[in-house]
C-alpha cells in the first residue's frame, strides 16, 4: 500500500473516525487527536513504515491535519 493509504489507515484506527473526508481539518482543535494519539501515531509509523520520528521532531503545528501528516511522512520516508 502507498504511504497515503497507510497513514489514513493508521489515523482511522487511532481516532475511530474516518478522516479521509476532511483532509485539511485540524485534528487537535476538533479533539480527534491529542498527545496520547500523537505518540501512538509515531509508534505506528515506526512499526508499519519503519520511519523513526523522535518526539522532539513532533512539532504539533506541522502534524495537525491529515494532509500535513501525509506530506510529513512522505518527506521522511
Amino acid at each position: 500500500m502507498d504511504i497515503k493509504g497507510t497513514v489514513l489507515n493508521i489515523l482511522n484506527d487511532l481516532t475511530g473516525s474516518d478522516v479521509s473526508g476532511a483532509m485539511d481539518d485540524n485534528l487537535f482543535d476538533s479533539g480527534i487527536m491529542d498527545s496520547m494519539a500523537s505518540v501512538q501515531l509515531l509508534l505506528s509509523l515506526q512499526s508499519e513504515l519503519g520511519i523513526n520520528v523522535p518526539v522532539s521532531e513532533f512539532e504539533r503545528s506541522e502534524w495537525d491535519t491529515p494532509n500535513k501528516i501525509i506530506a510529513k511522512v512522505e518527506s521522511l520516508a
Partner: protein
Amino acid sequence: MLTFEPYGNPTYFALLGVALLPLMIGLLYGKRSRLYETLISIFFLVLTFGGAKWTQGVALIIYILYEVGLTWGYAVYRKKHNSGPFFYLLVLLAIAPLTIVKVTPAVENGQASLIGFLGISYLTFRAVQTIMEIRDGAIKNYNVMTFLQFMLFFPTISSGPIDRYRRFEADYRSVPDREKYLGMLQKGVRYLFVGFMYKFILAYYFGTILMPKLQLMAIHSRGGFLDISWPLVGYMYAYSADLFFDFAGYSLFAVGTSYIMGIGTPMNFKQPWRSPNIKDFWNRWHITLSFWFRDFIYMRLVFWFMKHKVFKKPTTTANVTYIINMLIMGFWHGVTWFYITYGLFHGVALVINDMWLRYKKKHRESVPHNWFTQIFAIFLTGNLVCFSFLIFSGILDKVWF
C-alpha cells in the same frame, strides 16, 4: 547599588525604553548588533542580580557555567555515542541544582537554599530540553554562545515564558524584514500597555487591596464544615484573579520586550477563562510551561510506556502518565502538601476529563451540544480551576492548621 525586580517599577521601564531605542533603530535598518544586545543583557542582569542580591548573582554564574558544561559536554559526546543510561544521568545532573533548591526549604524549616536564585526553574527547563533535543538529534549544531544567549535572554530570565532552543536560535540568527519588524513592534508596545493594566491596576486591586482583607475575614470566620465560609469563597476568586492578572501581566511584559528586540518569544496565556474543559485549559494557561511538560515529560513517558508495553490499554497509559505529569508539576511548585495536592487534583481532573470526552465521542447522538451546555462547561471549568487555585494558594494551610 540599585537592584530591581524585573518589570517591577517605572524606573525599570524607563531604563528599558532607553536601552531598547538603539536596538529598535538598528532592527528597523535591518541590523542586529550582537555586541549591543549582549551589553544590555548584562546591564539588566546586573540590575536584577547585583547590589544587595549579589549572592544570587554568584549562584547564577556558577549555575550557568555548570549547565554550559553539561550541555556542551553532552553535545560533543553525542556526536560519537548514544548511551541511554548516560543520557539519564545527564538529565539528573541538569535538574540536581533545582531539586536541591526545591527540597531545601521543606527539610530546613523554610530556609532557602544558598545555590538558589530568581529564575532557576526556568533556566533548568531550558537546559533540560536542550539536552533532550541533543539526544534526539534535533539539535545538531549546538553552539555555546547561542546557548548562553538563550539561557540569559534577559526579558524572560526570571519567570519565562520558556522558549525553545531551536526556535530562539532561528530568531536570534536572523533579522526580521522591516514590515515584519514593524508588526512585531506594534504588538510589543501593545503587550506592554495591556501588561500595565493587568499587573499594575487589576492585579494590584485583587492582590494588594482585596486579598488581605478577605484572608483576614476568612481566618476569623472559621468553624462550620471544613472551615468554608463566604469570605473564603471570595478569597478563592480574588486569588485566582490576582494570580492570572499578575502572571499574565508579567508574561506580556516579557513577550512585549522580546518582540521589540525582534525575538518572537511564545505567548503564555490564551484566554484561559473561556476553556470548556480542563484539558483545553492547559492549552491556554501558562502555555509554555504546560507544553514543556507535555513535550518533555508526558509524551516521552507515554512513548516509553507504550514501547515497553508496560500497560495493556492505551487509556491506562494515558491516565497513569497524566497523574505522574501533574504530580511532578505540583512538586516543582514546591514540596508542600498544598502544591502536591494541586498537582494531584489536576491529574485526576485530566483523567476524568478524558473519560468524559471518550464517553461523549461514543454517544454523540444522545449528548446534547448547544450554547447552554457550552456556557455550563465554561462555568464549571472556571470554577474547578479557581478551586484548584484555592488549594494552591496555601490559605487552607493557615485556616486549617
